[in-house]
Every structure is written in C-alpha cells, then in structure tokens.
C-alpha cells in the first residue's frame, strides 16, 4: 500500500494566472480532486466542488488503468478483504457461500479465482512457467466476483448487484516470476550448502534447509532492482447484473466496463504508457476514457508529461473533460520519493457555459512524499 502525503501551493494572486479561453467542442465535467486542495477563486471553486461530488469522472492514470479486480472496480466495492481460494475444494466452499439458504445471492462477496483454483495447471513449476508462454498466459488470468447491496427505498425494493470480471495479461516484462534473480539463487544454495555436510537425521535436514534459506536470502537481498521502465500489455472486462432482493431469476443488466493498458520501454531512458477505458453505467450514462503518459529519466530521477480525456458517449449532448499534467519524481532515500507536479483541466464548463484552460495555474502546483514512485505497469 502506497502512503502519500501531499501539499498544494495556495496563492490567490497566482490563481489569476488561470485563464478562461474559447475552446470549441469541450465541456468541463467533474475532474480529479486532490486531497487537501482548497478552492480559491469563484469559477474554480464551482468546478472543484462539482469535481469532488462525482468521483466517477476522474481523469487520471489510476482511473483508466486496467484494474486487478475489475468486478470490484465496476461496483466500486471494497477490495480490502478479497477471498482467494487456492484449490478446487476451497473454490467450491467459497461458491457455496455466495448463495444464501433461501436461494438468493448474498451481498458483500469479494473473490478472485485463478485457473489453479479450478484445477488447471496445478502441477506446473518454475521451469514450465518460464519456458512456455501459454502456460504463463493461462496462469495469469484472474476472474473476480463481487456483490454489493442497495437498501430498499419507499419506491424500490432492495437490490443486490452482482459483477463478474476477467483480467488477462498478454505481456508483462515486470512479471516477478520471470526475474532471473530467483532462478540464479538456486545455484547459490546448492553451492554453499552441500547435503552431505549435514547429519542424516531430521535435525540435520532442518539445518540443511536453514542453510539454503539463509544463502538464498542473502543473495536475493543483494539482487539488483529491475529496470524502471518495463513494458507490458493487459486488458480486463467486467459485467454486472441487478438482482431485485437477491433473486437471480429476476436479474437484469446492470453495467459493463472494459480496460486496456499498454506500456512500452524506449531504450533505458523513457517509457510510454497508454490506457483506454470504456464504461456503460446505465442507459443514460457511459463514457470513454483515454490516458497517455511519457516518462523520461532514470531509476532515481524522472520527469513526465501526461494527459487524459474523458468523453461522455451516451448522453444526447456528448461532452468531454481533459486534464494535462507535468511532473517529476526523485528518489531521496530507499522507500522515500519526492514528487512535484503541476497540471489542470481543459474543456468546457457546462455550468458556467464557458471554455476553461487552467492547466498551468501555479495554484495547482503540488508536491508529495511517497513510499513508492508513481503508477507503473507492474501495479
């Protein structure tokens, strides 16, 4: 879990640097609201309050990247306690827990199922995983299941929302299990801990295991960090249904979403990342989000420019919100990153009826101390 502490420069005088311009075809919609941000001038305050009121319309890398658990993201469900069955037996037990004794679908379910839990590739190993692309492809697939509840109102009965999602990793240079360091570690333990050096007793075998563990631990601790700009391609989709009072036979379509994220290393000095997200929330609400980020630098110091665009796709009067940001990140010490960025929105303010460009308002300058760098493919 990344912890973050952010600060923002507040200067009423500088807010005047925000500019309003005529820009055809864009309309301002709610955009990302940074924690700790303080409204300043009136037009900005109106937009900021609106932004914080609608988390759905964030225009950021985090909002558009392919999620690990798409079903939970689609329902905006809690992901802090996800059940991950490790065997067919565990999966059966977990599945039985989804249905109540009354035959309805239980709410509050959060589960991720991998092919191993379905009995596939149970006896694979390090050799086959590293050598066989399709072995890796299947093993990396993750299916997520989530349910949430909406309380009854005077006009409507309670409903249970059920979502099923699928995540596929097509290519991932950051796959931790492909790292050659762990493979090389094997030879370290074999060389430093010959079996014949230990007594042929249970206690001796324990000492042997302890020796191997210590040797590999020392090696892996000193292993070099992987490259910072690795590439990859992954995609996900999720579909949800609305179940009145949890009744599966009365289910109707709820919502759907699809994501695609790709990263491409450029030499050892840059990385280009792009994400696409499509959502169909309900018959009157859907959007298409695009995001791109170019990072340049090294493992310790990076600069980046990123832009995102969120376009409503279903409403009669399509609208779009844009966001542009530039920033930099410095590794001050192991586990301590200092980041600074400045950015803002462009598009049309639907409420004010004017076009806005406040991208480089100095009031939007922010800095933060974090325990991990910004968004990466491996996340």
């Amino acid at each position, binding site marked *: 879990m990344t912890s973050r502490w952010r600060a923002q420069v507040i200067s009423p005088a500088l807010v005047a640097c925000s500019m309003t311009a005529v820009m055809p075809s864009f309309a301002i919609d709610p955009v990302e609201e940074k924690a700790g941000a303080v409204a300043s001038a009136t037009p900005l305050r109106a937009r900021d309050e609106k932004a914080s009121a609608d988390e759905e319309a964030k225009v950021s890398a985090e909002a558009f990247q392919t999620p690990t658990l798409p079903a939970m993201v689609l329902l905006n469900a809690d992901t802090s306690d996800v059940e991950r069955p490790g065997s067919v037996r565990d999966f059966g037990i977990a599945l039985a827990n989804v249905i109540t004794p009354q035959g309805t679908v239980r709410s509050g379910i959060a589960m991720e199922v991998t092919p191993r839990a379905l009995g596939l590739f149970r006896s694979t*190993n390090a050799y086959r995983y590293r050598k066989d692309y399709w072995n890796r492809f299947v093993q990396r697939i993750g299916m997520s299941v989530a349910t949430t509840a909406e309380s009854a109102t005077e006009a409507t009965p309670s409903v249970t929302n059920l979502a099923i999602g699928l995540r596929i990793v097509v290519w991932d240079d950051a796959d*931790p299990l492909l790292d050659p360091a*762990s493979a090389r570690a094997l030879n370290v333990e074999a060389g430093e801990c010959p079996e014949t050096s230990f007594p042929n007793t249970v206690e001796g*075998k324990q000492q042997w*295991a302890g020796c*191997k563990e210590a040797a590999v631990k020392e090696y892996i601790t000193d292993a070099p960090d*992987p490259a910072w700009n690795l590439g990859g391609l992954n995609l996900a989709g999720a579909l949800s249904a609305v179940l009145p009072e949890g009744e599966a036979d009365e289910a109707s379509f709820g919502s759907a979403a699809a994501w695609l994220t790709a990263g491409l290393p450029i030499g050892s000095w840059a990385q280009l990342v792009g994400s696409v997200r499509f959502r169909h929330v309900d018959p009157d609400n859907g959007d298409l989000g695009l995001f791109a980020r170019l990072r340049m630098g090294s493992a310790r110091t990076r600069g980046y420019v990123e832009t995102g665009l969120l376009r409503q796709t279903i409403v009669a009067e399509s609208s779009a919100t844009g966001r542009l940001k530039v920033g930099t990140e410095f590794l001050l010490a192991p586990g301590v990153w200092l980041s600074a960025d400045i950015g803002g929105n462009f598009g049309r303010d639907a409420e004010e009826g004017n076009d806005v460009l406040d991208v480089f308002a100095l009031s939007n300058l922010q800095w933060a101390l974090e325990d991990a760098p910004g968004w990466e493919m491996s996340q």
Partner: protein
Amino acid sequence: MGIVDRPLSEGGAMPGGISSDTEDTPLAVSANKPLLLKLLSDSIVISYSFHLVDSDGETVIKTWSGKTTDEDDDEVVVPASSLQSGRKIVWQLLLVGSVRGDVNYSIAIEYSQDGSVLGDDPTRGTLPKRDVKSLSGVRRIEVTT
C-alpha cells in the same frame, strides 16, 4: 495441516520433527504398492526435498531432492518395500520471492498409489518482496493390507 509457515532458521520447525499436526491424520497406504509423492507447485518454489524417516522419528532412511527449475517432473516414488507403519514422510520446500513485488502462492504435496490420490497437504500464502521462506510438513505412514 502440519505446515510450518515460519522460516526454519527462525524456529519454525518443531523439536524432534518438522511438524506434528498431520501425524494425527496418517497416510493410509496399501502394502506392496509404491507411493508417489508429487509436488503441485507454482513457480515460486525453486527446490524441494522429501525424506523417509524411520519410526524412531530421527533417522533419515532416504532423501529425494530436486529443483523445479529443471525440466524433470517434480515427483518421487517411494518403493513399496520402504513403506512401514510408523515411518514418516517429511517434505521441505524452498520458496524464493521476487525482487519486484509480493507474490501469492498456492502449493500442495499430493500422495497417491496406483493413480488414486490418498491425500494431500495444501498450503498457500503470500511471499513478500525479496523474501525467502522454507515450508515443511510431515505425514506418518500407516500400512493397510
């Protein structure tokens, strides 16, 4: 299930044996049939060893060990002649974490004879970034006629 999920070097093993829990659920094997021990692992396991321990609980009669980074299957055969009630199968695994992040694992040791699965010792958990862990377990053998 008799799984020791603490590093052996930190006292994870129990004195006089690896773990005593699964000795309460012995492995009922048929006489005169070899016993197949199979490691159902993911790629986080890099090496394994199986030990056949005599009924005194201390003497190791035979050890089979291997690397999952080899192309060979991760399984061993205990000859029928070695199967005696009171003897134990002790297994040890070495798990190596990643330099890139936490890894979830799901592993099992499966026991079978003549293609029929007699039982298994499953375990799963999360190995933190750059961590190394030894896992081990024990099964007491009970020969049936």
